[in-house]
């Protein structure tokens, strides 16, 4: 068991180390997110009475689209360097590699969220940074990274690659996005988190369900 976590940590450490050095993933996600926010801002500027009304949708859609960029890189970089085989040679259950990559993607997306939240506060003038909202964002991002990481491993071994990932990912992710947007609406309207307990349960259930399924199926995605 200790070995297992050692490998999870090794993969995570390696991905963080490379990202800190190159900043490839963060830069592309952050620039994309900032552009998306800018475009949303103009799209809604004169069309609706109050821009803050669209913030929940803007927030989650921006995260979903920026996140899918970063998730795509998770296995494309391994594949193109030919280093994936090196990971698969490790004498450990291969799900450890999944969890390492998943945690790395999770952290990348969380960092991008930390970057866009203040931007939304500034652009749309809403008090977005509250503890319940951060909790929902964290839980939602876990599910996002859980499904996104294994789908990234699927997509990378196909001819379509980057194009395919969002097509595979978003329909499966829909309940998570709906729950996230719905809860964000409620929280911004001043409701408490307890009033959205069912949504919170749905998100947690989604996270656990798909982490378990990914754990069970990752082997089939990387073997030949």
């Amino acid at each position: 068991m200790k070995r297992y976590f050692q490998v999870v940590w090794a993969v995570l450490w390696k991905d963080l180390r490379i990202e800190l050095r190159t900043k490839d993933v963060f830069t592309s996600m952050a620039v994309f997110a900032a552009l998306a926010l800018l475009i949303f801002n103009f799209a809604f500027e004169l069309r609706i009475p109050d821009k803050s009304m669209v913030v929940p949708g803007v927030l989650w859609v921006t995260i979903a689209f920026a996140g899918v960029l970063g998730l795509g890189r998770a296995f494309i970089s391994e594949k193109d360097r030919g280093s994936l085989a090196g990971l698969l040679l490790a004498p450990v259950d291969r799900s450890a590699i999944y969890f390492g990559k998943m945690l790395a993607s999770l952290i990348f997306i969380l960092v991008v969220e930390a970057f866009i939240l203040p931007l939304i506060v500034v652009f749309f003038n809403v008090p977005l940074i509250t503890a319940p909202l951060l909790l929902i964002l964290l839980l939602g991002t876990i599910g996002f990274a859980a499904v996104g990481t294994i789908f990234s491993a699927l997509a990378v071994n196909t001819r379509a690659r980057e194009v395919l990932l969002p097509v595979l990912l978003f329909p499966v992710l829909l309940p998570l996005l709906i729950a996230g947007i719905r809860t964000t609406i409620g929280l911004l309207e001043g409701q408490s988190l307890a009033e959205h307990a069912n949504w919170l349960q749905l998100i947690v259930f989604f996270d656990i369900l798909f982490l378990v399924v990914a754990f069970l199926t990752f082997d089939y995605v990387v073997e030949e």
Partner: protein
Amino acid sequence: MSQPLIRIAGLRKAFGRHRVLRGIDIDIEAGSSVILLGPNGAGKTTMLRILATLSKATSGDVQIAGVSVNDNAEGIRRYLGMVSHSPLLYGDLSAEENLTFYARLYGVSENDGRRDDLLQRVGLHHRRKDLVRTYSRGMVQRLAIARALLHNPPILLLDEPDTGLDPQAAEMMTDLLREIGGSERTIVMTTHHLERGLELADRVLILSGGRLVFDERISGLSYGDLRPLYDQYVGTGTP
């Protein structure tokens, strides 16, 4: 006779209807060095990938020290080191970081002594802090050898390790393998370069069309003897 270290029995592999390996039986004793020759598409790389547990056989079995890859691939990986034509290294990490990462994957205690010792022996100690992407192809391949030997595996699998190397670098790599590969290590190697392969090997296998067509010990065979055989099975045109 004692049990062979590697036993390949009735090995078949098909990708869809395309049959790459059509029933292969090979026993390899501990300590021997085997080169696997054959034309492109003969199934050399596929066979090596199955040995490395990266690929699953359609039928048949591979046993390492009596343990089947179907039963305990995880445990078997500990006994394997692999060098392939793609180096399995990260260009954005230094040599030192790459080795530290793989040491963790293999659960080799983070004993930097072994890492530094290996870096010395492959002649990269002075460049250990530099990013691997600044290395020449020959240096990368030397580091790949160090990476493969990190956990001191009894079996070394080499999949065309000399591809893309200039003759001088390839020569250096062969010397390195002979020197630190050690006589007790079992080596299975694919190559396109017959002469270089012979320097390392004590046994020659030739695969053609997914079948084993030639299997001979080298003692008594010279390059001159083998060349016509090689040309016959593999075809001329390869150097």
